[in-house]
């Protein structure tokens, strides 16, 4: 029997609603629209973090409003505030308890670089102990800045390989 080339085409009436795509695209699409942030609120940035979750700025418009205070239920740690050396241990342990894949947002000057605290007690950037995906400038950043950062994180998740980010290497902090 002669087979015409258009018979290979997808017939929705016979085979049902099927969409053909890459697995990366689907998995990342699912992941980036259900980011569950872990609010690591350590200082005044945490107040802005709360504001961005409240009604005026409403982080739920972007699909990441499910703030979980348990690291085991979350996949994005928002480090909001000053990380002291004493607290660094805790931050790292909580990060370790989060399931893969996981992402970190350094919110504000302190979490990104130590900020104005150039002192013996303050870690000069949380990227010394955890791999940071997005840095947010500001002291503290406005909620819009955090929303922008979270959207940037969504873009980043969308471009990642959905399998290779299951095991993240600790980047060596620059001296």
């Amino acid at each position, binding site marked *: 029997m002669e087979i015409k080339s258009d018979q290979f085409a997808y017939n929705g009436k016979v085979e049902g609603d099927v969409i053909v795509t890459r697995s990366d695209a689907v998995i990342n699409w699912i992941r980036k629209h259900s980011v569950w942030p872990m609010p690591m609120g350590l200082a005044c940035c945490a107040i802005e973090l709360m504001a961005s979750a409240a009604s005026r700025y409403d982080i739920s418009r972007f699909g990441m409003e499910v703030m979980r205070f348990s690291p085991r239920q979350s996949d994005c740690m928002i480090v909001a505030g000053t990380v002291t*050396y*004493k607290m*660094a*241990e805790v931050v*790292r*342990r909580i990060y370790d308890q989060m399931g893969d894949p996981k992402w970190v947002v350094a919110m504000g*000057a302190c979490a990104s670089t*130590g*900020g*104005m*605290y*150039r*002192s*013996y*007690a*303050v*870690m*000069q950037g949380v990227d*010394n*102990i*955890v791999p940071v995906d997005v840095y947010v400038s500001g002291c503290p950043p406005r909620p819009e800045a955090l929303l922008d950062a979270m959207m940037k994180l969504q873009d980043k998740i969308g471009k990642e390989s959905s399998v290779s980010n299951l095991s993240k290497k*600790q980047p*060596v*902090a620059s001296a």
Partner: protein
Amino acid sequence: MIDDEFSSELMRKYSFLSKRVSVDWLTVECSPKNLVDLLQSLRDQEGFDILIDLTAVDHGEDCESRFSTVIHLYSLVHRGYIRVHSVCSDNDNPIMPSCAEIYPAANWHEREAYDMFGIKFTDHPNLKRILMWDDYPYFPLRKEFPLAGIDTPLPAADVAEVTDASVEPAPMMGGPFVSGASGPMSDSEPRAKDESWTEEMEKGS
């Protein structure tokens, strides 16, 4: 009211006290061995019922008596303050009697003074560090300690092993809100000339 009459009466009652120069409230000098008795009577007989603050001073490495503690008490009866200053006798191993038994509020203040200055408060119920982690080797508010800090291992050895991080000095130079030694200074932002000192940079006078 805490006036001249009150203070001379107080000095007469407690003859071991001496008066210190002060621009505001009555300030007395008390030796450590009389401190507990004095505070007990100040609370029970003189009506100083609230401990406002307890802190320490490092007068400098070259000073004859280097460390002292300062206690601020408030009286709801007299509506005024008294300041009690006591000098630690030993410069290398400063010791002061604890007054946490008399004023429970002093408990954490004394822990902080121990944490920052290394002053040991005898008979304190729980004298351990309150701000820095337990095995931190230095006392950060002592004069010889640089603001930037000193290289130390991280408190958690396993985290340090995974992350290769340690407690590093963070000098002011290169940080925000610090101007370089030369060049124009901004008027619109907070700024300061860098006068910090580290292991490399000599301490200014």
